[in-house]
């Protein structure tokens, strides 16, 4: 097979990624990755703090992600390159930060893909109800088939994502309107299930602890930026697709909480792997039960699909800039996809799908996500300082700066504390890993990197340099 290896940021007449995507694909990529969070994961926040805590973090973490979307839209509409936040870090902070951000992305998306595959396998096994049937074959089939789909082309991948994400989303809307949300007592019984005595069973410390899994309502929306080199009009499509995706998710999260908290006790809601499917069952309607079962599978597929897409592009970008061996920067001559990166990450995802359980895989993903959001809050401050408004052309300028950055940073600190309350040792282990691999990069690997070639934007010299 003939392959072409791209030189760092020099696209020229070499094989490069195809610009074939529009705003709908950007929406499908972002919402497709995230929507699975409504089907599983968010409800573990009820376990950590009670049903009301899950609602409070739904809103507050929604604020965190609105800040992420606003900041990301401005920077990405200006730095439109594959790798998303990686390319931003490279141009604004420096190579070592870019290397770390790419690893955050790869870890967050690969572990999210693992979570999706576990969910899909467990859901099928639970539905089948056959003794001795395990989820392993379903997990392996999901990861391999989706990797193949990604290998074959980005347009087909995201067209598939658009359709299955839309079906999964519509199922939440159908469930919501099927249970007469304007009437309490007939189907929904919120007043009897969330009472003053059990709304916050652990008090406010439980609300803070719930932030850990509250992140899961929206984790991955920032993945829209990974498509920057493949959208026809990045300055328009990326902010539009990202903000539309965020609005879509805020509505879905609110509907999901309301229906689930009105149908099951918080103790059960906090441990089930399938809150929406269970909600469908508890309505007593076989149609809704089957619809939500299918939607859970579709949401998991859409998310895993988008995650493979994003993780591979971040890994590809590292190879293209020689931060990792340039072997990874090969683009398939026929399908124009970063196929070596896709294939390299495949066994890693498979391995963790078999050794981690669902909430451990989710936590791995959340840890890398929060590290990345911490970077984003500082990154936007540096971006505005180095290139103040008016010095370069921005596709979108987010309002109220620096308020979103400050809100984002503060909420990241709270989330780190929440992670400490359950997974502190894991957070320390992962941070030590990032620190050690940073030493490896800074003192060894960076010697293979061409210095000036990393800065590819047609901008003036940053202020202060």
């Amino acid at each position, binding site marked *: 097979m003939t392959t072409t290896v791209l030189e760092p940021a020099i696209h020229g007449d070499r094989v490069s990624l195809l610009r074939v995507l529009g705003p709908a694909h950007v929406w499908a990529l972002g919402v497709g990755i995230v929507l699975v969070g409504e089907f599983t994961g968010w409800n573990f926040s009820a376990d950590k703090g009670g049903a009301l805590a899950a609602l409070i973090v739904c809103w507050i973490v929604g604020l965190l992600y609105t800040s992420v979307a606003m900041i990301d839209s401005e920077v990405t509409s200006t730095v439109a390159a594959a790798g998303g936040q990686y390319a931003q870090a490279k141009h604004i902070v*420096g190579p070592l930060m870019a290397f770390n951000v790419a690893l955050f992305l790869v870890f967050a998306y690969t572990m999210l893909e693992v979570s999706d595959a576990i969910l899909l396998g467990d859901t099928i096994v639970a539905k089948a109800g056959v003794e001795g049937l395990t989820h392993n074959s379903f997990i392996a089939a999901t990861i391999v088939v989706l990797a193949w789909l990604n290998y074959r082309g980005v347009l087909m991948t995201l067209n598939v994502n658009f359709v299955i994400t839309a079906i999964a989303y519509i199922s939440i809307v159908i469930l919501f309107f099927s249970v007469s949300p304007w009437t309490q007592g007939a189907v929904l019984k919120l007043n009897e299930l969330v009472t003053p005595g059990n709304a916050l069973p652990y008090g406010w410390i439980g609300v803070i602890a719930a932030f850990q899994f509250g992140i899961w309502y929206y984790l991955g929306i920032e993945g829209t930026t990974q498509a920057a080199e493949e959208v026809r009009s990045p300055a328009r499509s990326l902010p539009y697709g990202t903000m539309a995706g965020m609005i879509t998710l805020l509505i879905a999260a609110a509907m999901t909480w309301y229906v689930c908290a009105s149908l099951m006790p918080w103790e*059960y809601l906090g441990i089930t792997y399938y809150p929406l499917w269970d909600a469908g069952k*508890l309505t007593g309607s076989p149609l809704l039960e089957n619809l939500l079962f299918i939607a859970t599978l579709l949401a998991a597929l859409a998310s895993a699909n988008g995650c493979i897409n994003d993780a591979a592009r971040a890994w590809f970008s590292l190879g293209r800039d020689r931060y990792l061996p340039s072997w990874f920067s090969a683009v398939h001559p026929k399908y124009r996809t970063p196929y070596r990166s896709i294939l390299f990450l495949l066994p890693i995802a498979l391995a963790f799908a078999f050794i*981690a359980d669902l909430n451990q895989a989710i936590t791995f993903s959340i840890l890398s996500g929060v590290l990345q959001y911490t970077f984003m809050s500082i990154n936007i401050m540096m971006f505005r300082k180095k290139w103040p408004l008016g010095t370069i052309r921005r596709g979108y300028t987010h309002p109220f700066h620096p308020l979103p950055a400050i809100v984002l940073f503060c909420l990241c600190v709270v989330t780190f504390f929440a992670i400490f*309350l359950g997974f502190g*040792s*894991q*957070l320390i282990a992962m941070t030590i890993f990032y620190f050690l691999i*940073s030493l490896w990069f*800074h003192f060894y690997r960076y010697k293979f990197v061409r210095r000036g070639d990393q800065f590819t934007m047609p901008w003036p010299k940053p202020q202060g340099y």
Partner: protein
Amino acid sequence: MSRYTPPEQSKAGQVFDIVVVVVAIFVALWLPLKLGLAGAAKSIDALDAKTWEALGQNPTMAAIWEKLGYTPETAHDVIQNRFHYVIDWPTLIIMAAVLIGYFVFLFRASDREYRDVINEKFDDK
């Protein structure tokens, strides 16, 4: 400023670097699982009387538990399995120090590398 020309990396060197990264990924993610460090501390606050009332469930909640296939006996371990949030200050301080140290190193080392990039990029013009 003179333009930096990186050394060419041999194929064996590339393979070695890939192995280093893969091993590091597995150690970072797999070791906490293997050592049992992952996962929050929950424990069951056992009750003698296993009734819906003793478990704090009103008739609506009890009816839903039963619809889900639970009895007071089987629901007991689910309902009474609780978090016990205790702030372990030494661990919290270590975690904060590791995080702050990591980010400080990251930004300072990145800035040194970034200055080389900017100097080479803009001094060439």
